[in-house]
Structures are given as structure tokens and as C-alpha cells.
């Protein structure tokens, strides 16, 4: 299919993305001769085949499968390929349920299109190596949902081939990668989106508008709490000593990828990698990009000045069972300095005085504390309410000034079509990831860290630099 793409005016090969972008800019004329093959992909008539975004999925375990089920229903999408180092795993013990992996997810997509097209669709392609998928020129965009340690490398490799990238949160495994991926995104000029869906929702926008409106005055403290890992995955444990056989259909070496090699264990895959420092980023990495998003947005947070953590027992292998992390931010424009406190593992902030008798803090949420009031919201900024409720009712809400989203995945696809913007793009999400992942460094450092953002180092703790940038296993750097 790549051969169908002609040369651009500059003589370079034109990617499908360039083509579509160009098309939307009114240069449709070049387009027509090249898109013949799109019709073979299973048009449903609702969206012109030429406008459909060809999607490849890299990492189709629990979350990857979940993403696909959402993307595939978008008439502007054509799923063309899935890639996973694993054939199939049982996720019934985890919150995703069912099975996932290359085989079942391909089967799902094939069935989906077969039903829609009376069996005329020939099926999506499957790959073990992501390089093979991103090497395909007919693919416009990739949706990445591997374990965290693979996110940045695959995203950057994909962006360098001109692919638009939707990558699960966090988009990086460490602070260095967060900065790097944002720079690469800028260089590549592709559409990017981090998978923090709350960013597209109403709650985060209301929070931004109310706080800008001065609804609670100057916000000096934000409390963010998360109940994970809860009963979801293991943290606070040491490396297992037994070395079970690698399950059939899993390319374990590729799964480990850029991390230091270690033998397979079911404590890593499926699903359980989140708690392991080499692969995941713990509860904070899992939820921080959701939960810190609205504070980051509404309070225009930049790099923190200092980060300090305490936690249950820390070890070199896994994230602790519970942490409490204090981030300090300086003034931003006319906004006052703010302290952001993260709690996980079941810990919460003290119950705010404004909360009415009988109401309790939910198991995860956000509290914005200003000098004139307090706002309580759901974990991702959803359903914000000034507390007490009587104050909420009195509040004269400001005009809705921030553009509303058509949906997180939908806006990514639309942006790939040249329509609008993906709002949690890597330019936005990169610094957010840095904030999130600095918390993990503070947990591991065991002391208050003073952050020198410009130089990507701690001015008071040289030895913690090893957590900022990690080495890739030989053969896995780009």
C-alpha cells in the first residue's frame, strides 16, 4: 500500500498523514489518485474512505483492547493492524476481565468489521514487533498501550515515521523520557494525545473556569488521593525467586525490551507490571496523569520547586504500598505558590471542615483549597462542587470559555484528519508527566528534593539522577 503514495512536492515520500492534512487544507486534488485502496478497507458509507484514519494498535492487553473497543466504533477510524509480543492472556482476575492479546483482539476487530461488511473484510494484520507495524506507510496513527517502560521508545519511533500517536498514560517511564518525547513530538509535528480521557471532559473545564473566575480565591493547596494499588496489583514486594516457564505465545525478551533482562514471572505479566519500577510507575504513574491533570491545567502548574515524600517501606523493586508526596510550586504569573499533596494506597487528606455532616471524602478525588473556599471533585476533575453545597448553589457560574471536547479519542482522530486539536498532546502532557514521575523519584530518594528543571537534575541530590534517566538495554535505544 505504501507504494501507492506518490512523491510530495519536496520530493520526499508523502505520508498518509501529510496527505490527509493537505487534503483538509484544500489540496484535495492530489489526493484522489492515491486513495483507491482505502475502499478495500471496509467502508461503511458514513465517512468517506479517504477520510478514514488507519489505526494500528501496539500493545493490546487489557487497556489496549479497551481502547480498541472505543476507537473502532468511530466511523472515521479503520483499524488495520494489531501488534503485541503476547498472543493471548487471561485477564479475568484483573479489572479488565476476559482475555486480551494479539489473537483475541485481532479476532475482535475482524468480527467487528465482518459483521459490518457482510464478511467482505479480509481482516486486520497482526505483528509481534512494533517496528513492523510502524514501518507500514498506510497507517496514519498508532494507539500505544504497552507497559510503561515501552511507551516513549515506541512513541518516538512511531513519530519519527510520521505516525500520529495516541499513547496511554504515563507517556514515559521517567522524567527524562517525558521531556524527550515532548521534544520529539514537536520535531515530528504529528498529532499526539496521552490517554488521560478526563482531559476531554466537562469537569476539568469547569474547574479551570471557576478557578480562573476566583470562585475559591487564590488556590494555595491541592490534595489528590488515589486508593490504588488497593487490591489491584502487587506493590511493596521483592523480586520473586522462582522462574516459571514463559507462557506459550509470549515473546518475553521483547516484552522486557529496554529494561534490564530478568526471567519471566506472572507477577509481571499479564497486568502486574505496574508495581515494578523496571516496568511500571506504581499507583502514582497509573493515576497521576489522570488526577493531576485538572490541577496542572487549572493552576497552570509548571515544574515543581521541591518534592518530598514519605511512604510505607521502600524497596528497589516495587513501588511502596502507600505514599504521601508533597510538591511545591512557585508563583505562576499572578497565581500564588501552591502545594500539591498526593496520597495513595488508601490514604486521604484530612476531612475538610467545609464538608457537611454525614458526607465523607470518596475513595479517590481532588480537593482544591483556596483562600476563599474549597472545591471537591472526582478523581479526574469530574463533578466539581464548591463545598459546602450551599456555597455551590450561591455561586454564579462564569461563562463557559474553554472549548468543549467531542471526546478524548474522538478529538485525536479528528485532529489526525486535520480538524481541531488533540488537547492532551505531548506538548501539554510532557511537563505533566514530569511532575507525576518526579513524585516517584522523591519516594525512592527518601529525602526532600530540590528540582532544577532546566538542567533536569536535583540541586541537592546528585545520586537521585539515576531515577531521572534510565539506561536502555543494549539493542533497544533508538
Amino acid at each position: 500500500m505504501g507504494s501507492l503514495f506518490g512523491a510530495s512536492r519536496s520530493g520526499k515520500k508523502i505520508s498518509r498523514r501529510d496527505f490527509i492534512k493537505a487534503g483538509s487544507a484544500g489540496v484535495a486534488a492530489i489526493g484522489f489518485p492515491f486513495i483507491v485502496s482505502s475502499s478495500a478497507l471496509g467502508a461503511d458509507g458514513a465517512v468517506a474512505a479517504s477520510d478514514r484514519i488507519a489505526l494500528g494498535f501496539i500493545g493490546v492487553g487489557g487497556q489496549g483492547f479497551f481502547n480498541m473497543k472505543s476507537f473502532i466504533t468511530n466511523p472515521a477510524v479503520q483499524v488495520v493492524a494489531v501488534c503485541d509480543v503476547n498472543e493471548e492472556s487471561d485477564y479475568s482476575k484483573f479489572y479488565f476481565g476476559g482475555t486480551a492479546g494479539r489473537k483475541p483482539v485481532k479476532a475482535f476487530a475482524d468480527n467487528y468489521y465482518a459483521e459490518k461488511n457482510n464478511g467482505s473484510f479480509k481482516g486486520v494484520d497482526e505483528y509481534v514487533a512494533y517496528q513492523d507495524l510502524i514501518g507500514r506507510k498506510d497507517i496514519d496513527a498508532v494507539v500505544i498501550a504497552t507497559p510503561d517502560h515501552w511507551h516513549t521508545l515506541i512513541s518516538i519511533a512511531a513519530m519519527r515515521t510520521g505516525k500520529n500517536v495516541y499513547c496511554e498514560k504515563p507517556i514515559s517511564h521517567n522524567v527524562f523520557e517525558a521531556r524527550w518525547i515532548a521534544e520529539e513530538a514537536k520535531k515530528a509535528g504529528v498529532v499526539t494525545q496521552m490517554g488521560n480521557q478526563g482531559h476531554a471532559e466537562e469537569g476539568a473545564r469547569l474547574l479551570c473556569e471557576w478557578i480562573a473566575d476566583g470562585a475559591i480565591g487564590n488556590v494555595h493547596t491541592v490534595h489528590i488521593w488515589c486508593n490504588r494499588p488497593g487490591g489491584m496489583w502487587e506493590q511493596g514486594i521483592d523480586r520473586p525467586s522462582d522462574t516459571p516457564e514463559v507462557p506459550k505465545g509470549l515473546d518475553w525478551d521483547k516484552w522486557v525490551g529496554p529494561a534490564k533482562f530478568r526471567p519471566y514471572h506472572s507477577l509481571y505479566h499479564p497486568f502486574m507490571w505496574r508495581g515494578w519500577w523496571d516496568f511500571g510507575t506504581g499507583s502514582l504513574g497509573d493515576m497521576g496523569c489522570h488526577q493531576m491533570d485538572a490541577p496542572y491545567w487549572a493552576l497552570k502548574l509548571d515544574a515543581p520547586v521541591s518534592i518530598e515524600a514519605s511512604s510505607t517501606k521502600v524497596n528497589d523493586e516495587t513501588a511502596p504500598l502507600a505514599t504521601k508526596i508533597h510538591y511545591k510550586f512557585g508563583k505562576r504569573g499572578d497565581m500564588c505558590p501552591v502545594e500539591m499533596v498526593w496520597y495513595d494506597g488508601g490514604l486521604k487528606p484530612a476531612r475538610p471542615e467545609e464538608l457537611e455532616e454525614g458526607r465523607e471524602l470518596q475513595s479517590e478525588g481532588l480537593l482544591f483549597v483556596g483562600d476563599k473556599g474549597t472545591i471537591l471533585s472526582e478523581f479526574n476533575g469530574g463533578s466539581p462542587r464548591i463545598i459546602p453545597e450551599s456555597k455551590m448553589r450561591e455561586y454564579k457560574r462564569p461563562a463557559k470559555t474553554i472549548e468543549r471536547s467531542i471526546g478524548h479519542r474522538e478529538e485525536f482522530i479528528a485532529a489526525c484528519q486535520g480538524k481541531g486539536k488533540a488537547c492532551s498532546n505531548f506538548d501539554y502532557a510532557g511537563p505533566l508527566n514530569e511532575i507525576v514521575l518526579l513524585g516517584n523519584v522523591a519516594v525512592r530518594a527518601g529525602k526532600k528534593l530540590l528540582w532544577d528543571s532546566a538542567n533536569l537534575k536535583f540541586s541537592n541530590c546528585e545520586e537521585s539522577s539515576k531515577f531521572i534517566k534510565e539506561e536502555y538495554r543494549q539493542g533497544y535505544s533508538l
Partner: protein
Amino acid sequence: MKDIEKQTKSSTSLSRRQFLASSAAFAAFTIVPSYVLGANGQQPPSDKLNIAAIGSGGMGSGNIERCSTENIVALCDVDDERGADTYAKHPNAPTFRDFRKMLDKEQKNIDAVIIATPDHTHAVAAMACMQLGKHVYVQKPLTHDIYEARMLTEAAHKYKVQTQMGNQGHSGEGIRLIAEWIQDGAIGPVREVHAWTDRPIWPQSVGRPAGELAVPSTLDWDLWLGTAPFRPFNKGYLPFDWRGWWDFGTGALGDMACHIIDPVFMALKLGYPTSASASFTRVRLGDRYEGHYLKLADMNETPPISSVIHYEFPQRGEMPAVKLHWYDGGMRPERPVELEQGRRMGDGGNGVIFVGDKGKIMCGCYAANPRIIPEEKMKEYKRPEPTIERIPGGEGGHEQDWIRACKDGKPASSNFDYSGPLTETVLMGNLTMRMDGERIEWDGVNMKVTNIPEANALVSRKYREGWSLGV
């Protein structure tokens, strides 16, 4: 010396206890001057207390040794092995497994009792002793439940006995310095305090051990269970890990807060809190790989791995309302900006930070090494004259302070009038945790949760049949 006691009793018809209790008032007239009997600086035998112990191993053994200036007249432990070392040191003391039998048989020979059992049997043992007119030294926390603490506090008055809780820091220098400095206004009015411990260092939030092990012949398991509901024996509970089970222990908070919060309670004259709330971990340790993901602990069974607890206290006289925050299991308060870089916070594992309007005081566990921070401010501070009486020997003199109280009738440093409400306050934290962390509003005087009626069920607990506090 028993002969001497008999003579004293028969001739005065005062029991030895009454004799000792009233000695403060009558000492000058009734006691044979000790210098007559105790030449060469040795203590005269008639001045010696006859002390028994319930829980003779572990913590109890240390308490007993620090009381060995007196006559150790009877020893009790449900576990022969645990008690063995102490028994060997006091070969003349008869030994018992059941404290009730000991009290039955030996009560006439006993003036005072050291109680160092697991938390769940502190109250029944102490109450039984007090009802017989025995002075008591009870390990911290004074009791397992709030109700028990209140009952012991009242009983101390009713039975006119001398009491001491085993929070030895209360006899130390540090707690006095903090109280004097705060009284002096060194850091202005205090509205906020942070206290923390790195405990538990024993398992909490583990599943109940499976299976039934044979009870060793050296242990009376039924007596060890005492007031607690029956459960099969497992060595996982002994000798120390019972702390991590609500049926027996009171968790990291119960173990350490009577020490760590002690200076806060004393210096700020706290009294009963008006509310407590908490958040905590819920995951379970142990058999962790089973099923390959974390299981949630049964929080009705076991304290959490880590908790943060918030207490509120109302204004007291001139002193403003204060919030006290407790952290355990690795959680700590934020490092104060006043603390110089590289300097240890608290004593490393534990500590307290008093936040005043004009400054901060930091100390370790047992109120150790109190300092205004930064050190520069400490050095500038002109310390007030000591106003609080010092205890000879400080922390190490805690047991002896009780012995002194038993003899001269002047209450010991951490007598139950003080340590009862301190224990109740500590236990409020467990009460909120057992109510899922919900904010409990507390009417301390009436010992009542006012906002969640069902929480009142946790103020006391039901004893196993055959056991009663006897009030």
C-alpha cells in the same frame, strides 16, 4: 520480712497497703525511721513493697527488674517459657499462670502489681488488682478500649491505689522541658502538632493464620486469650505479633502513641479530643503471591499497614484549639522548613513537631531531645526556670517513681488521672479507623460518639464468657 509484715498488721490492724497508702500523712509518726533499720544506706526491709507481676516475660521482665529494690513476691505468666528467665531471677516468688489464682492465693502478701500482658488483658488484670486494694503499674496503652481506660481511671480513685502507666518518657527531662518552654511562650500558641512513628515493625494487615496448631504444654492458650473471643492457637500471635490483631492489640498507634503523643498531651494540657478521623491502607500482607494480586485485609481483624489520623481538641483556657496529626507505617509529616538540611527529623523513626504561631519545637519518641528549630533559635532562647518537679532517674526512674508513690501516697508521674485520658485519646484513633476512618465527634465527658450512634459499640467490647471487668 513477712514476719515483720505480720507483726505490723496485727499490731495496727492496718493492712500493709493501707499502711503504705496512708504513710504520706502519718509517715513521721508511724514508720520506724528507716535509718534505724537500714544501716549503711541499705533500704530497711519494712519499707519494701511486696510486688507481684502479671505478664513476667518481655516488657514485664524489664519492669520487674527495675522494681527489684522491692520484694518480688509472686510472678504470673500464661507462658512458662516467656516467664522462665524472670522466674529464675526470683526463685522465692511463687509462680502462676492465672492471675486470678495468684491474687486469690497471694493477695495478703501483695502490695502492688506490675501488669505487662498483651493489651487485651490489661484492664481485667488491673481492675482485679485495684479492687483488692493493690497499687498497679500497667504497661501502655493502659487499656485496649476507651471504656476500660475510663473504668480504671475511676477505680484508682475508688480504691485509693497508686497507679502508673508504663510510658516511661513521662518521667523524663524532655517532656518537662517542652511543657515549660510552651508554657513560657517559646513558640507562641500551638494550634497544630504532627507526631509519627515508623512502626509497625510487626505484621499488620495479615490474614488470620490458617489451621490449628497444638498448644505447647508450656502455654495456657485459653488464659492467653483471656477476654478475647476464642480462636485456635497459632504461634503467629506470640510473643509479640498480637499487636497486629484487634482482638488482642491496638496496632502501631496503641503501641507507640502513649509515648510519642505524651508530651503533646502534657504540654498542651489536651484532655479529651472533640473529634478524630483517619485514612489508612487496606491491602493485606502475607500469602501475597496467591492469585497474583493484592488482597484487601479485613479491617475488622487487623490494624492497617499505615495510617494517618487527625484529632481535634477544643480551646483549653488560654490555649487555642489544636489539631494533632498522627502518621505511622512509614508516613511522616512534611519536613519543616526550619529544619536545617541534612538534619534528622525527630529521632529518625519517630518524633513530634509542635507548630506554634512563633516557632516550632521538635523532639523524638519519649519527648527525647526537644529542640526549638532551627538550632539557631534554640541557642538564642533564654530558657525559663524549671517549674515542673523532676523525677529522680528520669525515664529510668519511672517504676521507682511509682514505688515512691505507693509509699508516700503522692501520685506517680503518669498516674491514671493523666494516663487514662491520654490512653482514651490514643484509642480514639483506633475507633475512627474501625469506623472506616469516618470523622467521629466525641463527647469525652459522657464517653459518647455523638454523630454516629453505631460507633458507640466500639467504645467498649464484649468479653468472652467467664471474664468481666467487674464494674
